[in-house]
């Protein structure tokens, strides 16, 4: 049977495709069902954010950073604000630091819940999508309570956070953490031992460790390939060194491990949130900085944080005026799409979809 003369044909897994998480186009050369060559084409969401940032004051760049990575908008804001505060040596009040950590971890859980729903939907299961987004709404209510927006929060200001949390935030947050903790067993019960899920994700899209490091892969994808590296632990920013949480790490780097690792990370984030809620000090939440003529001293700075997808960084060059000279945004999905052809060639197209889903790529990070 294998001696058949078969011809290859090229097909577009194009910009408008349910499983390319936005608008990424993969030109596939196929031999029947097997993918022979993948050539990613990106740029369908290139909104020239870096050019816009060069003509905005620092305070105006923050809402733009939300649109840079809109699934975890808090981490995009934080990475920019953290860079500017380090450039200008601004001391952030204690309460603001705690609120930031709570918001960052809540946003990480919300992003992993979207990952859980979207990956399952790509692989064919529709129920997890409804499960995941149902719990995510609890977290979105918390965000809405504090900063009024569901997706692009503009919550973190240079020097602190914009609003203090209302009274009913803490009980609602504890309740949400409890509910998500319980619902985790539903999520795992639905998919972890599901034979179809195992057949579709076990040793599919295996990313070896050296390939992962060579291609600058970071975050859960890197930790699923055996490298125990998390910026919150290895190069702690903000007050992450005060909380004890461990870094889940798995070794055979296939889609199943990447999926499991993100569920473990939800549990770690729940632990951090509880510790942060217990230790939340009183005090003011913003060290007021006049946003219109705020001029940080001239200098360059690459600040990076660990968001739900991987290492997110911002390289800011300020020349002492009110507008940054250059803001380079680094998203981790950029490297994950670059490593995709190395990981998913020679497999059936169904495995390509599973690999692409578990790499958890979203397009604004790639196209900026």
């Amino acid at each position, binding site marked *: *049977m*294998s001696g*058949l*003369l*078969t*011809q*290859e*044909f*090229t*097909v*577009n*897994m*194009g*910009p*408008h*495709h349910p499983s390319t998480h936005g608008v990424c*186009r993969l030109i596939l050369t196929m*031999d*029947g*069902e097997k993918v022979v060559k993948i050539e990613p084409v990106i740029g369908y969401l290139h909104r020239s954010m870096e050019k816009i940032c060069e003509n905005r004051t620092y305070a105006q760049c923050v809402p733009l950073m939300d649109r840079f990575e809109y699934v975890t908008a808090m981490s995009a804001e934080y990475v920019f604000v953290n860079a500017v505060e380090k450039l200008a040596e601004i001391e952030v009040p204690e309460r603001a630091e705690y609120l930031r950590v709570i918001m960052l971890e809540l946003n990480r859980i919300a992003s992993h819940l979207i990952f859980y729903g979207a990956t399952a939907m790509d692989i064919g299961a529709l129920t997890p999508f409804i499960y995941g987004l149902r719990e995510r709404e609890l977290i979105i209510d918390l965000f809405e309570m504090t900063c009024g927006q569901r997706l692009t929060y503009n919550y973190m200001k240079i020097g602190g956070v914009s609003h203090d949390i209302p009274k009913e935030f803490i009980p609602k947050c504890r309740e949400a953490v409890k509910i998500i903790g319980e619902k985790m067993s539903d999520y795992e019960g639905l998919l972890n031992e599901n034979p179809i899920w195992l057949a579709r994700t076990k040793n599919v899209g295996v990313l070896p460790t050296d390939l992962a490091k060579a291609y600058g892969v970071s975050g859960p994808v890197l930790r699923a390939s055996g490298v125990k590296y998390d910026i919150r632990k290895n190069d702690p920013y903000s007050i992450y060194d005060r909380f004890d949480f461990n870094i889940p790490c798995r070794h055979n780097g296939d889609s199943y491990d990447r999926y499991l690792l993100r569920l473990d990370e939800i549990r770690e984030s729940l632990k951090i949130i509880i510790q942060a809620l217990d230790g939340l000090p009183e005090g003011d939440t913003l060290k007021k900085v006049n946003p219109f003529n705020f001029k940080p001293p001239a200098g360059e700075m690459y600040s990076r944080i660990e968001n739900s997808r991987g290492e997110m960084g911002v390289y800011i060059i300020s020349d002492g005026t009110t507008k940054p000279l250059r803001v380079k945004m680094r998203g981790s999905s950029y490297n994950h799409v670059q490593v995709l052809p190395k990981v998913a060639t020679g497999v059936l197209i169904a495995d390509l979809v599973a690999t692409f889903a578990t790499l958890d790529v979203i397009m604004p990070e790639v196209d900026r």
Partner: protein
Amino acid sequence: MLEYLAVLIFIVAGIGIVLFTFFFARLLRPSNPYPEKTINYECSELPFGSSWVQFNNRFYIFGLIFVIFDVEAVFLFPWAVAFSQLGLYALIEMVVFIVILFYGIYYAWRKGALKWV
């Protein structure tokens, strides 16, 4: 003669309903084909290359073998339902039927049709 009339009406009604639903919708819906609309959809890109290629039809062969044994199961159902009234003769008959088909799958297996390439 009358019974045949009932059968005739039944056939005509069956075919009529199918044709009705099929063509009545064609009369009612707007149809406005123009070139940009009739290119085949390839994720909002212009389709390049042709899909008229020889490809490895491993799925087609599995589908074929499945259909054979699905039909076998269809024949088993009436027999299994009326099994108690039929007695020994029907049992032997069915066993022979199953053995013949069992030989079929053995042939396909030896020929390598079941090998997943």
